[in-house]
Each structure stands twice: as structure tokens, then as C-alpha cells.
């Protein structure tokens, strides 16, 4: 079971207290009415499938209840950093590749 550092509680706590809440840094467009169908589709459905470091939202649902951002490596399943909503994504150690390939055997 992972231990996750909540940037608000400033404590490393068991994964059971948290839930995943999707890819991070996808801002809702300011004026959805002006979005083309393609732009709106991308906002709704198009997500990266990174093999490597992935920025995502988590919620400390059984703790402070707050959403935060996390940088997690999808191969090792290790958290590299967690940071508050609104903060920029810290530079990752390794650039994740955007692809859907299976792990090499």
C-alpha cells in the first residue's frame, strides 16, 4: 500500500485515505460556449497515457477532504511529488513518453 504525502496535512499517510481524481492541469475552458466541437471533445475525453511521470489529481477524501496534485511514475508506481492545486507541476526526473505500447517483455 502506497504512502502519500498530503501537501495540506503535511503528512505521509496510507493510500486508503486517498482517491484518484484524474489527470491534473486540465483547466476547464473559461468560456465553453466558444469552444469548437473538437476543442471541447479534447477537454472532455482526451487524456495522456504516459509511461513515466504523470501529473494527476488526488483527493485526501478520508482526511482533510482537499484535492491536490501529484506527480507519479506509472511504471514504478512511486510518487515523485505532491503539491497544492494551482501550483505548477515540478520538473520531473524523467520525461514520460506518450504512448500506448505494452511494456516490453
Amino acid at each position, binding site marked *: 500500500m502506497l504512502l502519500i504525502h498530503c501537501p495540506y496535512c503535511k503528512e505521509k499517510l496510507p493510500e486508503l485515505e486517498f482517491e484518484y481524481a484524474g489527470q491534473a492541469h486540465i483547466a476547464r475552458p473559461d468560456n465553453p460556449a466558444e469552444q469548437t*466541437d473538437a476543442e471541447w471533445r479534447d477537454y472532455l475525453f482526451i487524456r495522456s497515457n504516459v509511461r513515466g511521470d504523470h501529473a494527476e489529481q488526488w483527493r485526501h477524501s478520508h482526511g482533510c477532504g482537499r*484535492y491536490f496534485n501529484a506527480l507519479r511514475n506509472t511504471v514504478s508506481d512511486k510518487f515523485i511529488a505532491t503539491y497544492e492545486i*494551482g501550483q505548477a507541476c515540478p520538473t520531473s526526473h524523467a520525461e514520460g513518453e506518450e504512448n500506448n505500447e505494452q511494456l516490453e517483455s
Partner: protein
Amino acid sequence: MNNWRVDGKGRINRDKRVRFTFDGVSYQGYEGDTVASALLANGVHLMGRSFKYHRPRGPVTAGSEEPNALIGTSRSGTGRFEPNTRATVQELYEGLTTVSQNKWPSLKFDVGAVNDKLHKLFAAGFYYKTFMWPKSFWDKVYEPVIRASAGLGVSPTEPDADTYASRYLHTELLIVGAGPAGLAAALTAARNGTEVVLVDENRELGGSLLSEAPSAIDGNNTESWLAEVITELEARDNVRVMTRATAIGYYHENMVGVAEKLTDHMAHPPANAPRERMWRIRAQEVILAQGALERPLVFDGNDRPGVMMAGATQTYLNRYGVKVGNAAVVVTSHDSAWYAAFDLADAGVKIPAIVDVRATVNEYLQSEAQKRGITAKVGHSVTSVSGTKRVSGVKIGRISGDQQVADISSIPCDAVLMSGGWTPSLHLFSHTKGSLHWDEENEVFLPGERTERCHIAGGGRGLWSQQAAFDDGVHAAQQALTSLGQSAQALSVDVDGDRAGSGVVMEELPSNNDKLARRAFVDFQNDVTAKDIRLAVREGMLSIEHVKRFTTNGMATDQGKMSNMNGLKIAADELGRPTPKVGLTTFRPPYTPTTFGTFAGYHKDELFEVTRKTNIDSWAEENGAVFEPVSLWRRAWYYPKAGEDMHAAVARECRETRASVGMFDASTLGKIEVVGPDAAEFMNRMYTNPWTKLAAGRCRYGLLLGEDGFIRDDGVIGRISEDRFHVTTTTGGAARVLTMMEHFLQTEWPDLDVWLTSTTEQWSTIALNGPNARKVLEPFVKGADLSAEAFPHMALRECSVGSFEARLFRVSFTGELGFEVNVPSEHGRALWEILYQEGKKYDMCVYGTETMHVLRAEKGFIIVGQDTDGTVTPADAGLTWAIGKKKPDFVGKRSLTRPDMLLPNRKQLVGLLTEDPSVVLEEGAQIVETGDTAIPAKMLGHVTSSYWSEALGRSIAMALIEGGFERNSTSIDVPMPGQTHRATISGTVFYDPDGDRIKM
């Protein structure tokens, strides 16, 4: 009895005899025996039959890796039968009942053994190839036959009568395995004051020291050295020692799951004692000292009862005082089996020959053999084994070339000791995705890159001698302590008579016999032979993962502990590729078979899932309600009177509510308090409806979409004051809606000054519906005028009802004059009883969720999740009136104009009236064009809600149908079991279409 015991050997308690039965026959063993050691002491090797060929099998190991000796165990009382228990692990206790498996009619004469004669038919991939055609045989012939003959053991038929515990534990250092390496590490850390947890799957600490004691440790004999060490460790406050505790899985961030057996060794477990306990141990540092597992050799007949791992026979001798035979031939590719031979010879077992496949063996071993009068056959191979239910002899020959053997001779024997060398036990390390690297010289995988704070010590790093293991344990402890920021005094343990050794790794042993005719087993339990693995490769399985699945090699309950390396060597040989290039299959938890009970722990029966109950629930129970689960809540479904079935009770409740008044417990509705200066703006953004102009004291039906434009939830929302909304949600949707609100508020609109609070459990909600609802309620209301003029439909007041502070809504989910009274939840039942008394004047009924469903369907009110399925837009559900047309934006608005959302043939929610008014359609039934009897017919949609309407005297239904609005007044067919019903599409409001009744 017990004539296979060796005097003066073993750690069993010879003062304490223990009786047990195996297949109905009574046997005796001693305290400290396992079932396997006690049966062997009685001369019983035949303990089971194999999975596929039903070949007779005996134990091949003495530990938890045992693939063959699987038995059913039971103790008195029902619910305590367990299949597939390893006889080599199950400790003996007085009265233990055991049975063999996979046999009929008996273990010694088994009809299924005919499979063995037909083995050429049952080669790898047999199932995939044979049971293909004809198609009609799939479910009628193949499946039943395969089901009946397959399977390992028999599932228990009774619920498990035992209880299981679970605990968390945090420690600085966890050490897995208490052999030489683990003990040295534990002593080092313990003496330094480090917090240590030491776990071992065995009954006693010591590991290999129990099976093969060196002549002295630190000048002391091994037994007293070990006793002193155990006493020291157990006496220390900073050390926790756990035996019968198997580390089954290594999870993220140094969490190790440990399954501890508590009562399976006891004749009389204490009352209420849990059978097993699952520990979740979070350690700052972990030392894995799990040693190594001995590999079988692959030769024709290597599965016959009496053919055993050489190391296991040493364990049976030295730990249990049992000799596995009178004349044991040894066949090996590793030095260690020579020592096993010496131990057995010294205990009086005749060793007719040591057959070593290597071309040379060191002189010390040869001279030791000579001293004992043992013939050493170096550069020889075993070509076959005779005997079926017990080995009776072997054929051996000189290896004369590649796969060639000469000078074949027969040697009679009643046991064969085999050793193909040792495989480091890296299962737990592999759980962490730690990498393995191939040690070319010793042909083993060793631990490589680590992903967790763990250290491997001893046999796991390919170190074979006990001295090396002790030294390595000390070293691992020093590394762990350094990591912890502590320093450690080095400890030294000196072993006298240490037995170092080495060996080579083999594929099948050389033999002149046809490779394809040999019955040389790789995976004993799954009956996978070397031939099967070669066949799999020839049929195109190039990856070891495919070979595994095609042959089932390594898929038995030992999870490849016996078979993985041999299978890999043979596959690599057939592929003509180096072993490390072929790679290993993945090890996954659990390390050994673990009971479901241990995983479930306390989460069973009433603790499996909470049952949420309202404050009024106890009244419903006392008054004969029938309940139904709604998400985690249990809700009163209907209230039958004497002699009423569900249909009669619901019809009466509907009738009485519409005729006079009915009362309903609506407390489970989700409630969210939305508060703050920006509350109205927040509501505007979340819900489709406009909220700015909704006055305090009024309420409105609210519709919530996902950003994709599909309906997520709905409910009546009241504005308590300018900055305060009382939001209700569906019963099942409350948590989901609050989460969605929080997500938008925190991540998209942190600038909004709004607070969200779940208030579902703060309020008890009582709904009164019917023409007399006002009369029942009015006498108890203070601070509000309930007249139609002062308190119109969709109004709300904060007032007092029955002397309780209340939020009173005039709303209706039935189409009748309706009120919903919210009082602090603890007063729910009190108010309910007050209103119930008053209601008697008006023949008021109480009704449950079924009547609520019927009454709302008669009015065409939807239930989100029943009449919608996550693909329904407001337009599809006929709810465009709930959309605030002037609002620039709300969640999901932009999606409503995506091209697909505007197609005319979307599935739309309509009413259905069957031609035969007495027919109530099945909810979920598919809808097709009239007269469409093609198979398969084109599905137009499905029935979402369907009831008998007492008010209309006929059935009604709602359905989602492609282009349903366009099809109004036309007919469709609903095929149901037995008959196809025709129905006409209608609007969804079946009752009081003008809505006059709510205006009263």
C-alpha cells in the same frame, strides 16, 4: 508402528504420542510431527494422486513448497473442512482427520488413472485443440465432463465456522526468515536496540539449522546455541518473534503481509480464538532471509512415491527422526545431496549409489563416500525408475555423450534422493519489481536493482554454506541499521563443520530413451512433463509467459517453486537461446496458498458492509415492514397487513394515499448544505436550472449533469436564505454529488466563497402525500401558515413541527398535495409517531419505497439510474424545461450541442401502454419493431420502469426507445419469456396530466 523412526534423531516429543486418521485408517505420530512426517514414519509414501494423469504421488519436499502431498483436513464441527492442505506443513494434533484427494474409488485403486495410460492424448494444449468442435458439444458435453474431472480437491460445502483477525504493525526492521542469515541479522539488530520483527513460517526458529546441524556454533552444539539465541531474542523488549507466520506478499513502501496461523496445530483451540491473523507490517527496513529452494532433477519417473528432494530427506531425518526408506539411491548435480546421503547413511540407511551427473566431483566428497562404503557413480545418469505406488529401483548408466548413456544397470531401492541444486527464494523481492540478474557461473537469478528499502541475505543471494549465511545476515543488518541512521557492532558467528558446495544446472537428465516417451515431470502438481514444454516451444510459444499458459507449468499451488527454473532451462534449450534471454515468469503474492478467511479478516457477516438505518427504521421493523437495500441503506419496501402479499399491499398503499393520505420515510435522501456569499453563483454553475431569482422560502427541481452533458442526479433544492441552499440528491447519489461539487469548487472555482456540508444524517425526513396531508400536519405546525395561498406548491418554511425545529417543504413526488418535514434526525421517530396517531383520523397509510415508485411513475417522474443510464441527456428525458436558457454556462451545457447529442434517433424516454392492460412488462425487457421475429432482432431500446397502476386499473411502463418521441402513439413489441407483448408508445404522465391535485 513407527518402525521408520530413527532413535536419537529429530526434534519431536517422543513422550507425547498423537493419534490421527488418514483415509479412515488410524495412525500414531508424535507431538512436533507434520502429517507427512508421521505418515512417512508409518511407512506411508502414497498420499495423493496428481491432477491430470491421476498418478500416485507422495511428498517430494518437507516444506511449504510441497506440490504433491495435498490432503483434505478437518476437525470436529461443521465448516472446518479444508481442501489442498499441504501434508508437509500441517502439524499433527490429537484427533486430526485427513483424507487424500483426486481419487475414486480409492487412493490405491483409482479409475481416473486411465488418463495416465492415455497420456499421449493429453499433451500440452490438449484442451485447446480437442474440445473445439462440434460447437453444440461445448456446453452439453465438454464443459460438464471437464468440470467433473478437473479441479483440485473438493470445495467445502459449509460456511467457514472460524473467525480471522487482522492487525497493523509498524517497526524499524522486519526480518523474513529465521535461518542462519535471519537469526544473525536479528541478533545484530536486537543487540543494537533496534526495533525488530522476526517472522518465520515454521513452528520453530532455525531454518536449515533444524535440518542440517553443523557440528558446533561458537563452540557450542547447535541445539544449545539455537536455544540460547531464541531465549535471548524472545526476552528482548525491542524484538517481536512470530512463528507459523508466512510473509505472503511484499507491497509498496515496505508493507509486508504476514499470515500467521494461530490454531491449526491445536487439538483444542481456545473458544473464540481466531484461526489466523493477517498482519500488515510497515517496516522502515526489510531483510529478506528466505534461503533457497532445492530443485528437482528431470528424469523418467521422477514423480514416483519415494523419489524426494535430498534436502527434504535430511529434514525428515534430522528434524522428525524419520528415515524415508531402507535403501536410497542418490541422484544429483550438486554437492549438497552427498551430505544428505552421508546423514542418511550415518543413521543406518543403505545408500546403494550416489549417481552424480557431473564429470568430476571433489575428492573430499568421494573419500567421505568411500569411508561409508557408498559407491559413487560420477558422470552417470538415472534413465528410469521402476515401481508405481512406491519406487522399487532405478536404472542408471554412464553418460557417454550428448544425451547418450552406456553400461546401463539396475539398482533396487525403496527411495531416491534427488538434487538439481538450489534456487534462491526471491519471490518477495520480485513482488517489489526488484530486478533479477543472471549469475552465469552458478546459473541462478540473483537480486539486482532494488525498488524498496530491502536487503537480501544468505541463500537468497546464492550463498550456500551456513557460515556464509551467518556472515551475510550480519552484513545485511549492518546495512539496514546504517540506513536507519544507527550504527551496529559487528557480530561474529563461527560455524564448525560447515558444508560448502556447488553444482550445475541440468535440463532433462541424459538418457537413451525416446525423449517424447519419457515421463519426466517438471511441474508435479499440474503434470507438466519436459516433453510438454518442448512441444509448446515447437508449436510456437516463444515467450516463457506463453509456455507457462500453454502447458500450465508453474500454475500449480506451489506457484512454480519446484518447476520454474527447470521449465525455463528446458524451454531455453529447445529455443536455442541463453536462459536469461528467455526470462522468468512473474512471481505474484501470495507466496504460499492463503485462506480467503485470512484476507477477509473481520470483514464478514454483519461487518462485511455497513447497513445504514434511519431514525424511523425501528418503527418500520416493529410494524412489520418488508425491507429492501438501497445503496447502503435498508429501506421499508412495503408494509403488508395480515394476508397481504406484496402486490396487494402496494395496491392498497397506493389507493389509500391517493384517496386520503400516506406517510413515507424519506430520510435517506441525500442532503447537502450549500452556504456562502457565492452560493447562488455556485448553484448556477453546477445545476442546469437558474437559481439567482429563486426567492428565499422557495424551492425548485434541480437537474445535475456531468460535463459530458448526461444526467447525473436530480432532487428538490430549497433556498433557505440568500446565502443558503438545502440541496437534496438521490439516495444512492449523495456522496457522488458532493464529491463532484467539491471537485469543481476546489479545482476550478477556488475563488467562489462557498462551503459544502453533507447533512444527510442531520435530518429525518417524513413525507406526507394525499388530499388530507395538510389536515394531518397542520395541528403540529407552529410558525408557518399552511394554507394554499400562504404556502403554495414548491414553498418552504423554517418552523416548528411537533415542537421540533423543522424545515418544511411543500413538494410532491406523487402528484398529490405533499409535504416533506425535515427535523433533526434524532426526533424522526418521535414526530413519525405523533403524525401516525393523528393520521388515524383520516385512515392514513404508511407506505414504502415500492408504492413511492409506483406513484411517481404514474406522474412520469424519473428515477436517475433507473430511467437514465449515464447516456441520457435532459432532452432525451423530456426535461429541457429544467434548463436555464439564459444562463451562459453550467456543467455540461457545452456538451448538449455536440453533434451526437442532437441526433433525432437518440434513445428517448417515453411511456408504454400494453395492449393487454393486465400485463406488467419486465423492467429491462428489450423493445423491437412490431412483428420483428428475426434472431437477433434489432433492439430499439428497453423498458426502464414498469408497474401495476392501481389508480389507472392497468399496467404502465416507461422505456428508452430510439427516436421515441417521433414514435408517439405507434406500437412496438416487447419479447419476453413465453410471449411477445405489443404496446403503444405514449407520454410519460399517466395520471392527472394537468396537475390539478397538487394545487389543493
